[in-house]
């Protein structure tokens, strides 16, 4: 479904990504892990069209999408939930969902899609008239995911779902993501909770200094934290142990 082939991204004199090659198959759930500054978010932004590769290709469903603007990438069926939720805090939950679903099918189709999406988020259904800004952090993140789903994407790209949230809420969000994936939507996630990301994914890629340094089965990667540590460093790999569910960089990144 998604193929990155030898992608370089440069910011002027700074090369942020070096020869990134990776893939996400139909209905697959794939994790992208790595230390801060490894290039994870840059990879997602390049897929979404916010950055343009200096070299290499990105294809989605057989079509080149590298260099396309984000709106065009969205039209191809890629929805990106960015780090930071970009919700309209003064607007209701329902009005935020409308942002993700103006289609030619009109109000009835919108309501039908809302119902489908809300099945994953019963709490949002209860709070559909509430202003987004009054929701808890976890509920706001749910609304972000719900809004991304409103466009019925084939691939959901998720950047740091857990950012600033309590572990219990994070676990709940991962369960929701797994349920969404089970309906056929492929997921590519960047996550600071490495253990949790690897537990919920079928495959994973580890990035260091803008390069893919490890790729393979997520479960095997999770069960061999020492291997991950060799590439990512002990601090990041600490998040892969059973007891190490607190992200290595939680103190610096929690909001």
């Amino acid at each position, binding site marked *: 479904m998604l193929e990155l082939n030898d992608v370089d*991204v440069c910011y002027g004199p700074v090369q942020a990504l070096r020869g990134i090659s990776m893939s996400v198959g139909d209905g697959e759930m794939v994790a992208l892990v790595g230390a801060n500054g490894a290039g994870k978010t840059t990879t997602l932004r390049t897929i979404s069209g916010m950055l343009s590769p200096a070299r290499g290709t990105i294809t989605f469903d057989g079509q080149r999408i590298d260099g396309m603007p984000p709106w065009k990438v*969205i039209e191809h069926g890629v929805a990106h939930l960015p780090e930071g939720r*970009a919700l309209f805090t003064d607007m209701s939950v329902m009005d935020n969902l409308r942002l993700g679903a103006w289609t030619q099918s009109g109000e009835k189709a919108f309501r039908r899609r809302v119902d489908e999406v809300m099945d994953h988020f019963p709490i949002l259904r209860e709070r559909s008239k509430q202003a987004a800004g009054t929701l808890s952090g976890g509920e706001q993140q749910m609304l972000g995911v719900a809004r991304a789903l409103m466009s019925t994407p084939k691939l959901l790209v998720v950047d740091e779902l857990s950012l600033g949230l309590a572990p219990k809420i994070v676990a709940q969000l991962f369960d929701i993501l797994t349920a969404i994936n089970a309906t056929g939507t492929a997921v590519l996630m960047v996550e600071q909770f490495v253990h949790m990301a690897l537990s919920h994914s079928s495959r994973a890629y580890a990035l260091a200094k803008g390069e893919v340094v*490890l790729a393979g089965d997520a479960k095997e990667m999770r069960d061999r934290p020492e291997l991950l540590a060799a590439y990512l460093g002990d601090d990041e790999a600490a998040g892969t142990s059973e007891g190490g569910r607190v992200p290595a960089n939680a103190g610096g990144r929690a909001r």
Partner: protein
Amino acid sequence: MSAGMMTALRPRNRRSVSAGALVGIVVCASVLAVAALIASRSSSSRGTTSNADVRAQRTSLVSWESEIHPAVLAASQVVALGPRQGVSEIANKTQPIAELRVMAIGWHARLTVLAGQIADVSTPPFLQSAHVLLNQAMAGYVHAARSLLFAVPASGARRTSLLSTATADGRAADKVYDAAVADIAM
């Protein structure tokens, strides 16, 4: 390491990584050389960029992107799912005018809010030109949404004219957006 692990987890071939890195370095060096040439021609007062300057630039860039990209993505979602599809809906009046009007108000209101959010992001000097272009692109999308809003109740030649204006403004905004992305990479 077990044989299974060896086959399942694939540390990347260092030779191919090195070769890829070499090509990457050549590409970036070329970009850098062109950028340096342009910089030396455009500003004789500008000194050599040190590693510390590059690191500082990268930090400001990451911070700027973190602030601006969520709003850009949200705007892209509005554009992709709203006005871009809405042009033909309004042209063909596929839905009741009241519904089309609510949608068009929504596109215009949200794009206006997002344009404001994007404009408010504090920008380091070396990204000013990209930010200006992003602001221009957003102004174009807002203008296109405004034309669509006016087109909903209009009829005949006026509606056709407003729809044409909206389409032209949207296309022009797309081009300016592309220029902004290219500017960030430079």
